[in-house]
């Protein structure tokens, strides 16, 4: 078939993304659905290693222990707080306190009364799978902030911020759409979280970067002085592991192992990542004359974030376009943020916020489902953006006043590894530590 036909055919796919489970789900179908969801869960888990590697690789060796520590801490905090309260706030069921806006069905996790594993989610997954898959998502949102504020944020302050953000803010905005709240009712659509996960992290990253100010020496005499990442193989491992995890992030968001739906989401996700690479490579090679590895890695992630909102509702050709544009966007965004003196060492704002917004809006432009409109998408972006700005701003502000946000100049100079942990990441290796 020709490329033209292909779009036509892909358009006609919108039919099967509607859930078409067997009329009476049985143990067999539950078992396979649930197995897939567990696979998706461990894939999302490995994204945390991806974040740790990417962020560590794109920053300086003297802050590496600190970054690894933050990422290890956050996943523990994210999982435990989600078990304690997050899950029951995000999916309150009937237990809305403010209808469609704020719900909470109690502390802790445990099987609902009259639990029947097949009936629980119509044969799609068990209660425990439901919890864990969502818990892994929650931890992701906080991790996004970590990279943006790296190399200067106080460890304790950051962990406190993450704890509150992941325990309260993420579940609340999540409940608006995935928990069946008011945005859902408005017709807003965000398949796997371009906005609900990535932008939620991205907005906090933006506020954090703005409150902290740039790293020492980044902007001198009105010029941008790049501060090179110290370990490109590590960054590459990080980006590839994130991509790997995205198969679970998007593929699992089908919330069943529905063969056509999951495999179609795999295809759109993969091709968007690939075209994100091409987009970033093209801009970086042509515009900046030198093909920049860190940009190309960001490009793949940009494509992935971009497709996340609409992976199941756009055509293959649209997925390639969304990814490509995200890849282009991310490069310009990185340069633009530097122009604004917003110092984001790993490009977290550009990847997760900018491309998260782009992906969410792209659903309005490209979705094969006529009910998705640009304006509802914009509404969702704005509502969640506003709430995140407000809450993360308040939070960072209070923490700044009480504990302080930024390490001392001398600690920043000698590195947070020695300052916060009294350890080095690469003992024995020799460095030029002039930066």
């Amino acid at each position: 078939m020709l490329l033209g036909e292909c779009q036509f055919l892909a358009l006609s796919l919108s039919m099967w993304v509607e859930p078409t489970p067997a009329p009476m789900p049985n143990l067999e179908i539950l078992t396979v659905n649930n197995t897939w969801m567990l696979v998706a869960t461990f894939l999302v888990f490995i994204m945390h290693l991806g974040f740790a590697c990417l962020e560590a690789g794109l920053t300086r060796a003297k802050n590496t222990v600190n970054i690894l520590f933050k990422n290890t801490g956050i996943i523990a905090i994210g999982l435990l707080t989600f078990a304690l309260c997050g899950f029951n706030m995000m999916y309150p069921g009937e237990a809305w306190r403010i209808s469609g806006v704020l719900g909470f069905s109690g502390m802790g996790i445990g099987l609902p009364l009259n639990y029947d594993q097949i009936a629980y989610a119509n044969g799609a997954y068990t209660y425990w799978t439901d919890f864990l898959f969502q818990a892994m998502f929650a931890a992701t949102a906080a991790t996004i902030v970590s990279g943006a504020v790296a190399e200067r944020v106080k460890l304790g302050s950051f962990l406190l911020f993450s704890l509150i953000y992941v325990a309260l803010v993420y579940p609340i905005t999540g409940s608006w759409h995935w928990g069946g709240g008011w945005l859902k009712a408005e017709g807003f659509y965000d398949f796997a979280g371009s906005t609900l996960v990535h932008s939620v992290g991205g907005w906090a990253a933006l506020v954090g970067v703005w409150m902290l100010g740039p790293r020492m020496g980044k902007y001198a005499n009105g010029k941008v002085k790049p501060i090179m990442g110290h370990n490109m193989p590590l960054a590459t491992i990080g980006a590839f592991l994130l991509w790997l995890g995205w198969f679970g992030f998007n593929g699992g968001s089908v919330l069943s192992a529905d063969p056509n739906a999951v495999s179609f989401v795999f295809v759109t996700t993969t091709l968007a990542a690939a075209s994100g690479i091409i987009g970033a490579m093209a801009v970086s090679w042509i515009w900046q004359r030198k093909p920049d590895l860190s940009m190309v890695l960001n490009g793949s992630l940009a494509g992935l974030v971009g497709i996340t909102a609409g992976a199941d509702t756009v055509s293959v050709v649209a997925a390639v376009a969304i990814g490509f544009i995200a890849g282009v966007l991310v490069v310009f965004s990185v340069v633009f943020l530097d122009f604004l003196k917003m110092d984001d060492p790993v490009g977290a704002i550009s990847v997760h916020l900018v491309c998260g917004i782009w992906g969410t809006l792209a659903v309005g432009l490209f979705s094969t489902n006529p009910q998705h409109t640009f304006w509802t998408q914009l509404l969702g972006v704005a509502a969640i953006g506003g709430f995140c700005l407000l809450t993360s701003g308040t939070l960072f502000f209070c923490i700044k006043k009480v504990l302080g946000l930024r390490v001392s100049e001398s600690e920043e100079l000698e590195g947070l590894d020695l300052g916060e942990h009294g350890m080095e990441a690469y003992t024995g290796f020799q460095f030029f530590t002039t930066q």
Partner: protein
Amino acid sequence: MKLVVAYIRPDRLTAVKKALFERQIYKISVTNAIGCGQQRGYHEHYRGSDLEVDLLKKVRIEIGVNDAFLDATIGALIEGGQTGEVGDGIIFVQDLIDCLNIRTGERGPAAIG
């Protein structure tokens, strides 16, 4: 001709370079070093035990200069390298009895001019 060797804080290298360049001293060589002087070290912590690190990271600068430039060189090193805190480092001045540019074969003052 003199050979000036200075140990400075790593993070002062950019400032020292700037100060040298301003005085038209462009030819320098730099190595990584660790050192101890009046500055006390710090402690590292690893798996429940402490390690005293008393050799701190420094940068070693070596500059071959003609006598006329000696004061300027020392001045630049102090201007760029001084913070007033313990650990700023030291400058050594030695006699240079000969020197040679490997590319041109020039000898003596001309080689470092």
